């Protein structure tokens, strides 16, 4: 069984990370009834005897003593991390896993990347090495951050290069929150494009997410709950959207529901690697199957179902509905319409009591309405995990490598150009040592290159399938 380390950077990254750890504990608590530290737990948690001082406290088998998350928390201002340390999860994090500063990055990618990068390089490396040493077989780093700010975007992407150099065999999965149209940070286009260059070059797989989509999903759920449709009763506080039940009186913060969706995404992604099933899918298989060309590693994700219906006996129709929902644009975690764009590859990760015949039936049903690239017409990767998420009887995570991410990138480029043409706010960046205008130009050309590759693939959409001659052999 392999282990993964989560690196949460910046305010956004840490807040999402916090929700993730809360849900992970809840999920494992529901599955692991006996309190034995098993391999599934070990993928994200260490079992530590806290009475032992220093490093010797790790226990590898037997009853659970104290669980420590395999996480590194990084933020250049103290507010968010302090809040986590005072909250209900304070014992899950080891105090040695934190790196904080006081002043913050001022929403400036250059400060995060160049200034704090060089300042904290050694310290970060040390913490990462430590957490890797605690792992028997480290498979993957999960990095959570936002693209629009300073720390998450700058320092977060600085990390990527470091991880690539230091741990070349370990996969780097990045969950990036992209700025939406009405983002409140004015320099977010600069930060995002500068960060994109690093993501293009050093990440194995990126799961882009945007706040607007998450917000839309939450609003829809609220609507369903409050509309009181006849015949359906919906559990109001499904685990997808809230961590209610942890501390009863906690006032729900505005981003909590949205962060929970992302946390669920990460849990479902790793569920088949942690739990048993009839068709397992490990994390290295995600990269292998969904990334046909190294540059095109942006995966659009969608999660269903988003709320639990109170009736337990789910008829087959509902199951099929779950599959259809996964492909509708309302369930995507980024604003995109995969049905009308070209699919390069698609993965369906199913959890719960779903069998292979249901899977096959739905693939047959949905295939005609989706456009796959000509050389990958059967580009489906499937996995079945027997353990459902908490509070649901089954769930589906669809990951698609689809050209529908192109509009997001193009829009980002638009916003960037609008600011850049006027050289607005540029001096904040250029006054940092190591930043020059060429950095901006390189980042822009990297993004343009990516968009061009997607364009080329889209161009093949309407072309008829070329018939390559088969190899002819002499008999």
């Amino acid at each position, binding site marked *: *069984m*392999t282990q993964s380390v989560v690196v949460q950077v910046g305010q956004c990254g840490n807040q999402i990370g916090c929700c993730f750890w809360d849900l992970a504990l809840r999920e494992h608590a529901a599955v692991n009834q006996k309190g034995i530290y098993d*391999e599934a737990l070990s993928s994200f948690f260490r079992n530590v005897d806290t009475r032992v001082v220093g490093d010797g406290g790790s226990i590898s088998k037997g009853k659970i003593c104290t669980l420590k998350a395999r996480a590194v928390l990084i933020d250049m201002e103290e507010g968010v991390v302090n809040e986590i340390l005072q909250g209900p999860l304070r014992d899950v994090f080891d105090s040695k896993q934190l790196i904080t500063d006081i002043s913050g990055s001022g929403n400036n990618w250059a400060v995060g990347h160049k200034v704090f990068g060089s300042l904290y390089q050694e310290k970060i490396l040390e913490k990462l090495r430590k957490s890797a040493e605690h792992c*028997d*077989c480290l*498979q993957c780093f999960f990095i959570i951050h936002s693209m629009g700010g300073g720390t998450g975007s700058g320092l977060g992407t600085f990390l990527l290069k470091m991880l690539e150099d230091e741990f070349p065999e370990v996969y780097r999965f990045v969950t990036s929150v992209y700025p939406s149209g009405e983002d409140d940070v004015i320099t977010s286009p600069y930060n995002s494009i500068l960060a994109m260059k690093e993501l293009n070059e050093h990440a194995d797989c990126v799961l882009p997410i945007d706040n607007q989509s998450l917000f839309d999903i939450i609003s829809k759920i609220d609507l369903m709950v409050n509309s009181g449709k006849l015949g359906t009763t919906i559990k109001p506080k499904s685990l997808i959207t809230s961590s209610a039940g942890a501390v009863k009186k906690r006032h729900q913060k505005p981003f909590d529901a949205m962060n929970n969706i992302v946390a669920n995404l990460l849990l479902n992604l790793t569920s088949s690697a942690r739990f*048993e099933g*009839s*068709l*397992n899918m*490990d994390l*290295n*298989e995600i*990269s*292998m*199957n*969904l*990334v*046909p*060309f*190294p540059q095109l590693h942006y995966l659009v994700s969608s999660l269903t179902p988003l709320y639990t219906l109170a009736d337990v006996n789910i008829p087959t129709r509902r199951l099929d509905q779950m599959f259809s929902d996964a492909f509708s644009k309302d369930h995507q975690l980024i604003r995109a319409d995969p049905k009308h764009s070209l699919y390069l*590859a698609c*993965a369906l990760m199913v959890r719960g009591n779903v*069998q*292979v*015949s*249901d899977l*096959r039936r739905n*693939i*047959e049903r949905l*295939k005609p309405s989706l456009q796959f690239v*000509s*050389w*990958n*017409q*059967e*580009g*489906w*990767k*499937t996995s*079945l995990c027997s353990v459902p998420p908490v509070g649901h009887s089954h769930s589906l995570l669809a990951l698609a490598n689809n050209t529908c991410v192109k509009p997001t990138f193009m829009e980002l480029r638009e916003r960037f150009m609008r600011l850049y043409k006027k050289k607005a706010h540029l001096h904040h960046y250029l006054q940092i040592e190591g930043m020059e205008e060429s950095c901006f130009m390189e980042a822009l050309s990297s993004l343009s290159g990516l968009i061009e590759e997607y364009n080329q693939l889209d161009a093949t959409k309407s072309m008829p399938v*070329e018939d*390559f001659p*088969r*190899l*002819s*052999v002499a*008999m």
Partner: protein
Amino acid sequence: MSVVTVQLGQCGNQIGFEVFDALYTDSHCPQGLCSKRENEAYQASCKERFFSEEENGVPSARAILVDMEPKVTNQTLSKAAQSGRWKYGQHSCFCQKQGSGNNWAYGYSVHGPRHEESIMNLIQKEVEKCDSLSGFFIIMSMAGGTGSGLGAFVTQNLQDQYSNSLKMNHIIWPYETGEVIVQNYNSILTLSHLYRSSDALLVHENDAVHKICAKLMNIKQISFSDINQVLAHQLGSVFQPTYSVEGSCHYRRNPLGDLMENLVPHPEFKMLGIRNIPQMSENSLAYSTFTWAGLLKHLRQMLISNSKMEEGIDWQVRPPLSRLPTLGKASLNRELQFNTSIANLVILRGKDVHSADLGKKLRAYIHQYTKFGLEEEDFLDSFTLLEQVVASYCNL
């Protein structure tokens, strides 16, 4: 003579468990149709082939479990132990922590050499336990990373180390609509390598078995364990002891040798398929009556028309070839056939080659394979070999 089974990857291990379970249940079935003496002879023969005797009386399967991640092998071992009727040997399992990532090159070029010694040692131990070795039965899938890549590597090693023993590879052909995206690449590479080092390739298609489950056995929600059980049932009918010339209590001693002698006359033509009737759920068995002649006729029809099930036969004329009758305890019949009806498989394979070819033209996913030492020439070699095989079959 004994058969040593090597189960590779998630698919191989899951199927292997069902096979041993079916073999055991069949030979210890309480409702016998034959005399007691015959029963005992049958049991003894079956047991000698697939199980070895342990101290506490629970037979231990002659099998090695190999997988690159522990979940499936742990599950398989515990399921067998829990049943109480038979189990796997304590030290017959080899697993690592991180899987092969559906990457044939990773299974073949990285895991293979790295774990060569340990795996071959395990096999050696199991072989030493046999009085006389008939051969190896290797169960693997073609679509994944461990089964396909490591399977090809292990078969090659077996060819080198045990060149006098026969090897039959049982390969699972993935669903047409895809279960793994790079399954075309993995399948092509596996087939071409196996063709060089194996003696016979017994193919089972997921699609076909799925249809059998749906139509004949009337299972509503088909799970992989249902599919595996049907597979095991078919395999069981191949491997159960058959009568030898001497008479009703003497069974043929060399299962693999006999099969191969009759079915693989020329090393160019190694692909085998199975047709099995009757296939139906336990419940309907009570309501059906069979006659031997009727079953045989049906089977012949299935052969001629190249269908894998009793229903939906589409008529085309083609000459059938050899047959091997068995007389088992339950009224089973199976036919193992090698003939141009394999054209179906060949066409499937051709399509595979074609789509893999298309992908390769655009170099899709190739970087994942070259990362682990596979070169484009290796792909080209595989394509050429398979095209040759397809051409030979078409010429027949």
